[in-house]
């Protein structure tokens, strides 16, 4: 059992959890994730390790309520426990002093991009960050990102806060202003990552993305998380989750992530039918 020692609601439908998980906390590196299972009936879902505190033995997760499992997680409070947490999984981010790095987080993607940004800053890079959300209320980690960036740009799709528009427009501006860019890290909705890659490909800017396919075990045993990268089949949980964005077949992944569209809707309906996110214990 993994105890929640802190919970902070960051935005509507986005919450931060600090969990007691000492072994994971001392091992994890930027870019890695855990899989959790809330209870005996639960699905195993992946979440990025946003931060860790080896001294206190805690890891930080940020979850957006998308469907049944994340909604049930969102209903848990400080003091509650999660049945299973396994990690750290996936390859850590390859961090070095590239020169200038642009870190882009779209929506909940800001959560996984944050530890990478911090690691890049730590390694001596000049870091220009761009974070965006649909609307002001959904924006997360603005202060945290500012602390680890040389410059931070903020966008909202509806213009309710800061720059009105998409993160790609900021990137476009940076490119047009002839900013020297050595590498781009982009994490967010698949369509956003695809748009970033289309842009950076034209300008020959190396781009790393972190993929979020549907996972079951997270250890390379099932192949549910397979993605086509450079024409080859890769298992995102062990070969990734980060890949060269210019080689990723995003369209295929978008289709694969809709595999259980009907079932997910059904699970959500069942959940709300039981009067809102149920307590995790049945």
């Amino acid at each position, binding site marked *: 059992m993994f105890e929640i020692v802190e919970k902070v609601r960051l935005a509507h439908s986005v919450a931060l959890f600090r969990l007691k998980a000492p*072994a*994971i906390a001392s*091992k994890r590196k930027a870019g890695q994730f855990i899989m959790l*299972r809330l209870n005996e*009936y*639960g*699905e*195993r879902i992946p979440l990025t390790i946003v931060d860790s505190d080896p001294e206190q033995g805690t890891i930080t997760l940020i979850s957006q309520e998308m469907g*049944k*499992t994340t909604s049930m997680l969102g209903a848990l409070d400080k003091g509650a426990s999660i*049945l*299973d*947490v*396994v*990690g*750290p*999984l996936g390859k850590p981010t390859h961090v070095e002093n590239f020169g200038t790095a642009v870190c882009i987080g779209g929506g909940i993607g800001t959560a996984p991009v944050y530890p990478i940004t911090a690691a890049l800053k730590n390694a001596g890079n000049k870091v220009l960050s761009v974070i965006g959300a649909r609307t002001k209320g959904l924006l997360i980690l603005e202060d945290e990102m500012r602390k680890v960036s040389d410059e931070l740009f903020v966008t909202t799709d509806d213009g309710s806060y800061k720059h009105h528009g998409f993160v790609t427009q900021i990137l476009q501006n940076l490119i047009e202003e002839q900013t020297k860019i050595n590498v781009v890290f982009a994490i967010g909705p698949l369509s956003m990552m695809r748009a970033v890659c289309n842009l950076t490909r034209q300008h020959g800017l190396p781009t790393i993305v972190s993929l979020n396919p549907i996972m*079951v*075990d997270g*250890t*390379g*045993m*099932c*192949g*549910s998380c*397979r*993605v*086509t990268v450079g024409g080859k*089949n890769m298992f995102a949980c*062990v070969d990734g989750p980060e890949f060269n964005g210019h080689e990723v077949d995003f369209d*295929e992944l978008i*289709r*694969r992530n*809709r*595999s*259980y569209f009907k*079932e*997910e809707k*059904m*699970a959500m309906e*069942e959940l709300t039918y039981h009067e809102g996110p149920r307590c995790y214990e049945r």
Partner: protein
Amino acid sequence: MLREVTLKPLADKSARMKIPRQDMPEQDPLERITNFREVPFGYTEELAMKEATRCLQCKDPQCVAGCPVNINIPWFVRLVAEGKFIEAAWKIRETNLLPAVCGRVCRQEDQCEKFCIRGKKGKAVAIGALERFVADYEREKGDVPIPEIPAWTGKKVAVVGSGPAGLTAAGDLVKRGHRVTIFEALHVPGGVLMYGIPEFRLPKKIVKAEIEYLKRMGVEFEFNAVIGKLFTVDDLFAEGYDAVFIGTGAGLPIFMNIPGENLVGVYSSNEYLTRVNLMRAYRFPEYDTPVLRGRKVIVVGGGNTALDASRTARRLCYEDVTVVYRRSREEMPARREEIKHAEEEGVKFLFLTAPTRYLGDREGRLVRAELVRMELSGPDESGRRRPLPAAGSEFQIDADIVIVAVGNLINPIIPLSSPDIRVNRCGNIIVEPSTEKTSKKGVFAGGDIVRGGATVILAMGDGRRAAYNIHEYLTDNKG
């Protein structure tokens, strides 16, 4: 350990010869495809005693040599014939830690029963069914006594992976007085027994009972512990473990790299079976993990895994399930019993056929498979005839689910994190066969990680041999 038993004189041989092999009663095929309950009900006491009486009590029993762990078969069978079921269970437990499992999943037709003298003219004694009966009897009567555990030797052993290899190694090591912790990547123990082999062939409560038994013997478990990620093998030594056994299985699914394999609806057998068995997707939405149901299912492959997947799909799909195998029926590596059960359940077979590509709709969901006929060449070096596609014989059939069951490779997490453990070209850990020692000091390995996809009983044999050699290593090693 064994209570004193006095055996009665044997019944007349010719009378025993007249008894036909007793079949286990089973669930009706039409009934069983609507549920996930176990197919055979098992022997009653009467049937078991009758079947056991068929054994001729050979002086030089060939069956024993055919069993990879050399269970004293005539001895336990004779105890069954006399109704001394608990004593029979104890006899088996001397050499086999998981009798209820082996009685169900061993390939008896290629092992013990293949060599049974009664099989020469007629049918072999149903050794597997008797083993299963005895183990079930013992479990259901409760009160399975644990063997005496000697005082702690002061040594600690880490076992990585809780499949049959790891469980056996752990059991044998605690019996020798060592402290053992099993590190398991998943949230439950059992390996393939839990996530691969379906409920209707191996009920999970049986696996759980065997694991409870190990816990009572003092084996400790750490779940959600991926060795190579959470701790490396060197970390385990640094934590104070004196030896490490690696039994992490062969868990990396092979795909065929043909067009359309990433369409929605194409699964590896590992994924399909894990969703259904481990995550209980057959009870979605009571359990949260879904699995696609599908109208028409194709399963590619001819081994136990393909058959398990096809029979699982039969219970979940709406229309039909077809197994597509590139060789002929005779060459199918699956157990005969499984093939028979699958056929009774209405699974169809296409032999000498292989998929060439999968076709999807606009949303990327599978709708059809293109298959090709195969022709067998003359025997190759391995003596098997090699199947080659017959040009121009392609044809298409409708399918919304494909389950690829063409084998597994080795998961590289441990070798990558411990480069000093030598592996072969295919990624299998290299061991000294008689001792299960790897190239790294104090590290032993066995089961599928060494052999590639093998069997439960061979994995158990490896675990046992490793335990013996780990014990030698720990007691010799003065450092």
